[in-house]
């Protein structure tokens, strides 16, 4: 659609730049390589259009664009590419609380979950680079405040925190068993106790 106006040379350059990078590439980084007459955003849009439906797609995440394999190929790719374990339920909930309530202290996280936060959970989130300490709360003991990272956005395919559903939207009550796969529903304890709850649906 918008492709015709974009010179092939610019498309090639954008393609090479984004392909080579390990992290998402911002439009600004691309703009530095393009002639001033070209809009980086337009070039990226044309590039995304070219890759739509292919085995590798251009997605917008964490303030930039990144090539990623198409989600539907995951089951096949998992046969050959090593994948890390899924985060345990406690870690996912803690991560959600930090993402929604940041900056937030450990005590506040424990208050919301009604359970103490294990060292193991904190270590897992830190090691995965999903959370960072971000200053201290001006309160007795000056507890550390926690926040989510760019890596969090990148990992879950979010452009920014506003991509998270609003809290009220989340509460359409037990959203029927199906749509939310690893739901900690009645049998949650069993799921989290067993292996990592492989989310069989949707794939």
């Amino acid at each position: 659609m918008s492709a015709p106006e974009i010179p092939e040379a610019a498309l090639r350059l954008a393609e090479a730049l984004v392909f080579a990078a390990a992290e998402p590439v911002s439009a600004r980084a691309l703009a530095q390589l393009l002639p001033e007459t070209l809009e980086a955003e337009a070039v990226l849009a044309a590039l995304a259009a070219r890759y739509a439906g292919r085995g590798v797609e251009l997605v917008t995440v964490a303030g930039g664009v990144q090539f990623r394999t198409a989600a539907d190929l995951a089951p096949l790719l998992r046969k050959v590419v090593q994948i890390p374990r899924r985060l345990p339920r406690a870690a996912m909930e803690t991560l959600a609380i930090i993402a929604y309530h940041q900056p937030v202290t450990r005590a506040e996280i424990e208050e919301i979950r009604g359970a103490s936060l294990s060292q193991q959970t904190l270590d897992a989130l830190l090691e995965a680079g999903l959370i960072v300490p971000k200053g201290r709360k001006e309160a007795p003991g000056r507890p550390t405040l926690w926040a989510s990272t760019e890596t969090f956005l990148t990992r879950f395919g979010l452009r920014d925190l506003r991509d998270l559903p609003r809290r009220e939207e989340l509460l359409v009550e037990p959203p029927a068993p199906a749509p939310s796969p690893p739901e900690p529903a009645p049998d949650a304890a069993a799921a989290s106790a067993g292996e990592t709850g492989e989310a069989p649906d949707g794939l």
Partner: protein
Amino acid sequence: MPEPAAPDAAASSRLLLRLDGFDGPLDLLLELARGQKLDLARISILALVEQYLAVIEGARRVRLELAAEWLVMAAWLAWLKSRLLLPDDEAAAEEGEQAAEVLAERLVALQQMRAAAAWLGTRPELGRDVFARGGPESFVAIDRSRLVLDVPGLLRSYLAALRRAAGRRGYAPAPVTYWSLKDALARLGAMLGELPDWQTLERFLPPTPLSPLERRAAVASTLLAGLELARTGAARLRQEEPFGPILVRKARGGEQSE
């Protein structure tokens, strides 16, 4: 009350077998609330309390030792129940309602975060569901040829070198040898004979370069030597005015100091 509790009796006994599977009392309460299959905002707190207490009661029958957190929550819910059922007065009733509201809000907040975690779980996760470039290429070349040079750094290094070297040698103060009375006597005695007339005492100071301190010591020693020689009659001393130069010469036969 038995109405809502009864159908869940079976569930309760099922639950108590795996209390350890819950992340604490709030987790259990939330699950019980979800069992009511209602909008969380409209659940019956009273029924919920009944259920929780039933579960804990059942659990205590099976295992006497229960984690304190379960019992603390049970005690608090028992208190809440009494406020909701048989308030002593209006204030107590209001207190009960407020507490029930707070509990309901906490359950909603936890449920929201549960849902948020679940929503995140449905996202295509990088590294599990979608994959980035396995072998990214880096076109960043690092040039380390430039040197950071600054004068403060240079001075720090200089001082560090000097201090370290000094430390290695150990601190050895220069041996200070003051001009002793004995030295002064010997010199004055030897020189007096060769000099025909009055000389200032300072001419008899040691011949080597002196620091100010050494010089003062030598002046004192030489004065003492002069006094000693005058006392024995070997020399004569004279001072024209206060603080003026002190003059000395060899005594001639039978002279006395002036």
